[in-house]
């Protein structure tokens, strides 16, 4: 049986570093050289929480350098609570890298990255790659308040221009992050975005208005995370290069198919989405 051409594997790793960036926002670093070698910007992994909860949980690959990768997550429920209990020296099993990453080909020079809340976890690697390739990277970074703009300075150190937005005005633009993007004097070549679905919809609208191509990293409830259950779909144009193999005649005039966020995505072109 032909295997998928996949570099994803189960990695039994060890936590080597734990930082609490803000109350309930954790970064766990772990040694996984093969994962690092295989990871492309925008990919994610499935973390298996200790204690055998019902499903593993999808998390962006935040950092990946040398032997060290990390995840950054908000403690929202059972599974992230279990992960938050891990300390350096504890075992951690992850599956990855998974999904398609951002498409950074095409020699883009001027990129706006939009991150909302925990979306920040998926945009460090693309920012680093773009900066390495000599692009200008503006980070539009929104959160409820200044304290939740975690690791913002890190991105500045890497070379990004930071444009913060907070719901309460405690730092940067007072309001939504897409509003800051809409007001930017010149449009970028490309927009990359990761964050809550309402933010992504708003970014897609701004991108369409300003006629800038945009890639959105979507979030859906996952079960398998590897393409086996078809539980995580989003409707996209049947003409998209990311559309799953499907008989065109079956669509009965509709041009929409359901693509798996975990496998065909999580990154889709905004203009392909039919949500």
């Amino acid at each position, binding site marked *: *049986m032909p295997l998928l051409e996949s570099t994803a594997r189960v990695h039994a790793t060890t936590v080597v570093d734990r930082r609490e960036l803000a109350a309930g926002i954790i970064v766990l670093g772990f040694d996984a050289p093969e994962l690092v070698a295989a990871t492309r910007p925008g990919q994610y992994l499935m973390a298996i929480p200790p204690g055998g909860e019902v499903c593993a949980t999808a998390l962006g690959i935040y950092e990946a350098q040398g032997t060290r990768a990390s995840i950054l997550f908000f403690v929202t429920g059972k599974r992230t609570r279990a992960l938050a209990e891990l300390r350096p020296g504890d075992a951690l099993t992850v599956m990855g890298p998974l999904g398609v990453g951002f498409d950074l080909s095409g020699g883009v020079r001027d990129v706006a990255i939009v991150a909302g809340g925990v979306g920040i976890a998926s945009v460090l690697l693309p920012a680093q790659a773009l900066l390495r390739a000599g692009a200008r990277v503006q980070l539009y970074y929104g959160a409820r308040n200044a304290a939740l703009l975690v690791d913002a300075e890190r991105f500045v150190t890497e070379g990004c221009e930071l444009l913060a937005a907070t719901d309460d005005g405690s730092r940067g633009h007072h309001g939504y992050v897409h509003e800051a993007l809409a007001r930017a004097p010149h449009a970028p070549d490309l927009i990359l975005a990761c964050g809550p679905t309402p933010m992504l919809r708003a970014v897609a609208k701004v991108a369409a208005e300003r006629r800038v191509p945009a890639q959105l990293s979507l979030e859906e409830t996952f079960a398998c995370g*590897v393409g086996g259950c078809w539980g995580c779909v989003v409707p996209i144009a049947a003409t998209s290069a990311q559309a799953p193999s499907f008989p065109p005649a079956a669509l009965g005039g509709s041009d929409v198919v359901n693509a798996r966020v975990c496998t065909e995505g999580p990154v889709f072109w905004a203009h392909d989405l039919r949500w």
Partner: protein
Amino acid sequence: MVTRVTPDLSVQLGRLHLAYPTLMGSGCYGSGIEYAPFVDLARIGAVVLKSVTRQPRLGNPTPRLVHTPAGMLNAIGLQNPGIAWYLEHDVAKYADRPCAMVGSVAGFSIDDYAYVCERLAARAEIDAIELNISCPNVASEGETFACDPALTAKVVRAARATTDKTLIVKLSPNVTDIAAVAREAEAAGADALAVINTVRGMAIDVEAWRPRLGNVTGGLSGAAIRPIAVLAVYEVARAVRIPIVGQGGIETVTDALEFFLAGASAISIGTANFTDPRTPERIVAGLSEYLQRRNLTRIGAIVGRANRGFANRQEYEGDQG
């Protein structure tokens, strides 16, 4: 004198011989290929493929999944490209399969089932057929066959007529008397029974005031339903003589043993693959250890042994040695 031999975990389901008594649940394991980077497929018994229908189906609207206490609800809605496209594009991928491939057939009429079953079973890459007459997520389009003993008999008879390959009939727990349905399926020619499919359920978003699933209702799987599934297997085992593939919330070797002791000859793992894809190999290793510890040489020795009271099963041979 006790010699520790590697126990025989193989199982016979009609004409189908499996090296391991572990099947991967339909709809949970894609085509198996998706899991190949994470598990050694040669160490599992069979993959039951995602159910396929006569016509292509776009499936249910998103959200299709909700996590619930010790389980999950799903309402995928049988998204699949339809049998014609499936035969043309997908089946050939299983030619060099490292484990058995069981095709799963779903439908909305008896004719649908017979049509798809015949075409799928004709392919050499498909080792057996499972009839999914119990999907709870397409009910709007018609009654679930497995909720009606008479309909079950008809659809099984029609499918049976199309192939000599092993025919597994998948039953629904959403009935008052699952044993009655099981007896009809056996009489109509089923070689084995898959017990159980998901339990119907629902979850509500209390802020948005709407169902959490796009399809409103869904099927509950995972550890939450295990006691329901164990009982279903126990009752079916006392009603029929054909082998049972037990399933519903199996996560550990202890869970698997409950099903064998209740009367299952093989087990199926679905939701627990989402917790950890290494679950099937852990269970196989655990079964070997358990049998060795009790000086049993084959998995068949424990099938149906939870209650010495039932007489219609032949596997009883007691602890040996």
